[in-house]
């Protein structure tokens, strides 16, 4: 990477100007605001400005990512007020820790990591444990009372899955939300959850039979 600068005073001496760049392309963000092209500044520019106290720049980032941040929180927590609190706290934490970002272009992944961490701790603190306590390593019990199934059939497959997700551990659930619902890669999910792609695959593999079991009435 080239890195040099041109200083005003030295310009007359024909100082060369180089470009320091990671040749980065702007990360596609799912809910980029529509607006005049001139105002659609890239994340890295906004992060640098916000870090220097430009509140407007940070507000643009909040508006750009509010949908994804809230949606991730809402899908992990399944409780709109708690998700709103978590999303708010995630942005405030991001603002406080902007100086910790190493690669400004990677703002989105960094923000999602903060969001998921907060959502998981909110989940643990309110102690919404799986309805059927299951160790991550164990296989599901095969038999359950028919009651829930009848209820499940009545109000739809998606609703049944939403309930079934409560049977997962917080970590399994976060994996399911990020990989299967947000469509992230194993690597992205692993980086957000501070783990390895292999561990993510493992959690999904253990989550699948539990969820499939809950959806048995639809087979």
């Amino acid at each position, binding site marked *: 990477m080239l890195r040099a600068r041109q200083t005003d005073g030295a310009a007359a001496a024909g100082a060369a100007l180089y470009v320091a760049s990671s040749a980065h392309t702007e990360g596609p963000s799912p809910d980029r605001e529509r607006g005049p092209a001139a105002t659609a500044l890239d994340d890295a520019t906004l992060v640098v400005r916000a870090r220097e106290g430009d509140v407007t720049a940070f507000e643009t980032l909040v508006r750009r990512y509010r949908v994804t941040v*809230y949606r991730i929180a809402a899908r992990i927590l399944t409780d709109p007020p708690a998700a709103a609190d978590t999303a708010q706290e995630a942005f405030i934490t991001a603002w406080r820790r902007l100086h910790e970002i190493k690669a400004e272009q990677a703002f989105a992944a960094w923000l999602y990591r903060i969001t998921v961490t907060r959502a998981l701790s909110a989940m643990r603190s309110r102690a919404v444990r799986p309805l059927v306590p299951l160790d991550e390593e164990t296989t599901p019990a095969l038999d359950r009372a028919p009651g829930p199934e009848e209820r499940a059939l009545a109000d739809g497959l998606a609703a049944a899955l939403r309930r079934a997700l409560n049977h997962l551990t917080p970590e399994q659930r976060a994996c399911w939300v990020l990989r299967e619902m947000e469509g992230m890669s194993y690597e992205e999910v692993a980086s957000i959850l501070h783990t390895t792609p292999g561990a993510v695959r493992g959690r*999904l*593999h253990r989550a699948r039979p539990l969820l499939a079991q809950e959806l048995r009435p639809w087979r």
Partner: protein
Amino acid sequence: MAVNLAGDRLPCGHRVDQLWACLGSGAPDEHVRACEYCQAALAMIRPLRTATSELAAQPVRVPADLPRRVMAVIGPRIPPAPRIAVPVAAPDRLAISVRAAAMVLRAAGDSVEGVRARSCRLTPAAVGPNASAGLKLTISVRYGLPALSAARAVRRAVRAAARAQLGLTLGPIDIEVVDIHAA
């Protein structure tokens, strides 16, 4: 027939992840079409795949006041920025915060076609007749734009804005091109 989805592999050697991925994308291969274990596993996970897609497609209603709530907490917590004295006829005095000045100077940088101003560090010693320390500005330049002429135009625009809008005469302006952005 029920198969054990929790095992590493089905009795035929296929992995459940492969079948799961295959439900999401392509057509099953010949083995899967003919294999009773694979078919049994598919029957067990198909509703889960459908449910996941349905749930993921459901719109999420984001609270409209989220940005306002965030900014209401952040705003009051911003520490005050240093001030720069603007030369005016005595006995009047005028000062401007470096943060406010930076917003004006970044906007001047942005006004140059293909340029986005990023970091803008203005030190009090950077202004005035005996200015020595530099204004440090980093910019991103649109791909294909000659960086040297872009930097020259930025310097002109920033200097002019400082004078016209802030009443400040800047010392040396140090520009660093730190990124290239797509058109």
